[in-house]
């Protein structure tokens, strides 16, 4: 999902963006949770988040200097993160990416632009579940247990601040936010910071977090695997998808950006059913899970799909590993890689202990009592199990904002959402945006 072919700059003109309006005063298009997740927010409904010039710097950290990076991942020799500095004193906000995501991608771009334009120094970090973080900065190699992942993340934040940012930026206050899994980690970071006080974060906003990573992952597993069980079915799905997209692409005139506007147009014309959209979402997640399975297996030398001690050359044909890991759902990542890894050092530990530590339930007390942590979520978020939104409403009370629709992070760039997010931190976009 992170992969985009930007064919060129010009966007498809939206002729009637109000064609799908619901009869409430929330102006996000009347899409169901699956469609909103896939399409996200059309350009015309976003605030003006364009930035002049290229005011950012890519920085890198050697988190574990003694760690030997395997040759075939030479490109992830250091942890890379992105900084948008302001001139002069300003508040600093850390952004934590969603599952499997690096410091870039569409949702991160929205956050960078919004906070930068609102006057923050912005520092974007990859998710602990991302490829580069697993290789360079994860202490376990099997991310998923939120307290451990958050310690890794917090270490990176401190290191980035002490070694690099503190020398260059004048900071008034510290804040943190994240979306999806990064949203859940935001809660954990806020709690850890209460104890360690390295930053004294003033506020943290959790955007579309899962309540239980395990539950959400099982749901995402099921979206793919309830619809597709064999490779033949997968090929049929892929063929239909590419044929449909190809036909739509062939009808476009001029330059096309395969972004929300193009998808929205295709959606309005073709009206794919939820089964197809769910399959697509499940597929995107499976690509993330595929990478996590493979890398966790290699990093912990578990011999799960790659035999212990295998030396892969850069030029090696790894199609077999690709297929096996591609057909390994997150449920098995948890059961066959994560749990056994934790049991190596503590044989007493159970699946349920770890499922608990991969959820917000284990920091419920903190989330209920703190007044620094806010929540932004959607009623129809497709990664939430029944009852989980209600639990969040109960825990966060009036610190939680639940939007009537938007799916999973689909409405993050919608103007009301951007405004709400910035207002939570006492900020706003400049006039006219």
């Amino acid at each position, binding site marked *: 999902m992170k992969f985009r072919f*930007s064919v060129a700059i010009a966007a498809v003109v939206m002729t009637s963006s109000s064609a799908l309006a619901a009869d409430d005063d929330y102006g996000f298009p009347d899409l169901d949770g699956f469609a909103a997740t896939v399409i996200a927010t059309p350009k015309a409904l976003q605030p003006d988040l364009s930035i002049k010039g290229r005011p950012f710097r890519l920085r890198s950290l050697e988190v574990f200097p003694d760690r030997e990076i395997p040759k075939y*991942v030479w490109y992830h020799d250091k942890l890379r993160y992105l900084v948008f500095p302001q001139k002069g004193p300003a508040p600093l906000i850390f952004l934590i990416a969603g599952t499997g995501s*690096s410091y870039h991608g569409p949702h991160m771009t929205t956050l960078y632009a919004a906070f930068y334009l609102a006057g923050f120094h912005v520092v974007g970090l990859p998710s602990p579940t991302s490829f580069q973080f697993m290789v360079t900065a994860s202490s376990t190699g099997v991310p998923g247990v939120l307290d451990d992942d958050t310690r890794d993340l917090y270490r990176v934040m401190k290191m980035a601040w002490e070694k690099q940012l503190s020398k260059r930026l004048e900071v008034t206050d510290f804040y943190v936010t994240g979306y999806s899994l990064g949203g859940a980690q935001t809660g954990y970071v806020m709690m850890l910071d209460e104890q360690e006080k390295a930053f004294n974060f003033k506020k943290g906003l959790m955007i579309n977090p899962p309540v239980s990573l395990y539950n959400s992952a099982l749901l995402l597993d099921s979206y793919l695997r309830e619809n597709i069980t064999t490779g033949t079915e997968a090929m049929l799905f892929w063929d239909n998808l590419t044929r449909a997209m190809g036909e739509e*692409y062939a009808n476009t005139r001029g*330059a096309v950006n395969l972004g929300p506007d193009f998808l929205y147009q295709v959606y309005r014309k073709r009206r794919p059913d939820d089964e197809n959209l769910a399959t697509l979402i499940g597929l995107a997640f499976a690509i993330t899970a595929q990478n996590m399975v493979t890398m966790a297996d290699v990093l912990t030398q578990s011999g799960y799909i790659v035999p212990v001690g*295998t030396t892969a050359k850069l030029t*090696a044909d790894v199609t077999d*590993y690709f*297929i*096996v890991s591609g057909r390994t759902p997150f449920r098995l990542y948890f059961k066959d890689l994560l749990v056994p890894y934790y049991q190596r050092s503590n044989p007493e530990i159970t699946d349920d202990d770890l499922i608990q530590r991969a959820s917000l339930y284990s920091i419920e007390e903190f989330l209920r009592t703190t007044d620094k942590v806010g929540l932004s979520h959607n009623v129809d978020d497709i990664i939430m199990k029944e009852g989980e939104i209600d639990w969040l409403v109960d825990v966060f009370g009036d610190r939680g904002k639940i939007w009537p629709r938007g799916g999973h992070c689909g409405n993050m760039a919608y103007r009301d959402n951007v405004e709400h997010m910035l207002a939570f931190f006492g900020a706003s976009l400049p006039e006219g945006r």
Partner: protein
Amino acid sequence: MNINAIRLLVTAFVASSVILSGCAASRPQEGADPARRQLGDVMAPEDTTLFASTYDPWEGYNRWMYNFNARFDRYLFAPAAEGYKRFLPKFMRSGVHNFMRNIREVLNVYNALLQARLRTAGRSTGRFAVNSTLGLAGFFDPATEMGMYYQREDFGQTLGVWGVGPGPYFVLPIFGPSSLRDATGLGVDYAVWYYLDLFGYRSWASDQPLVWPNLLYAIDLRANVDFRYYEMGSVYEYLWIRQLYLEYRQFEIQR
């Protein structure tokens, strides 16, 4: 060394790599236990997969070249494009971009003609006429505002339109993902451009110190592609990109 010698060297280098490369599988350590989850556990014997059926007989070479390109891109190409974007104002960059697209328009025209797509050929011809004159030798693009939008055509697409399949997947030096068909197309397009030498531009460009117009062409090309090697977030990026490239070309051929 002139540009022709470099070209010859690159060709020889690629050819020898193709011939010499086999496709080594990864090697488990001797005596290691087999992996707990194997191919047989995840798929029935009669089942198929998309990726295993992609024709990539030169995978060893391709992977090596993909990685070479990634290094070249990380240390040279992408930083050059990034510096270009930072230090040249946007209106100058878009001027360069328009100019480079305009001198390429002739390739769009002849390929559209060969594909019997007369409307596309007409549009591209119109663009070239309007932009070369009103657009001040191509620096501006008034044609798009007049409704004549840009559409890239190349000889690989032309072959595709007439039913030629992609053939083996083939990663080119610097250019990146391609196929035997598309690499051939690239060569044919280059030859046409070389021998046509419209308004003497090509021979003028190759006489400049450091062939800077060609370097500028390359940097403009890179600056307008939103892709970074090894940033997809998957250890299987090579396989995903291969698939997406082949699908994307299919899209382009249909268009």
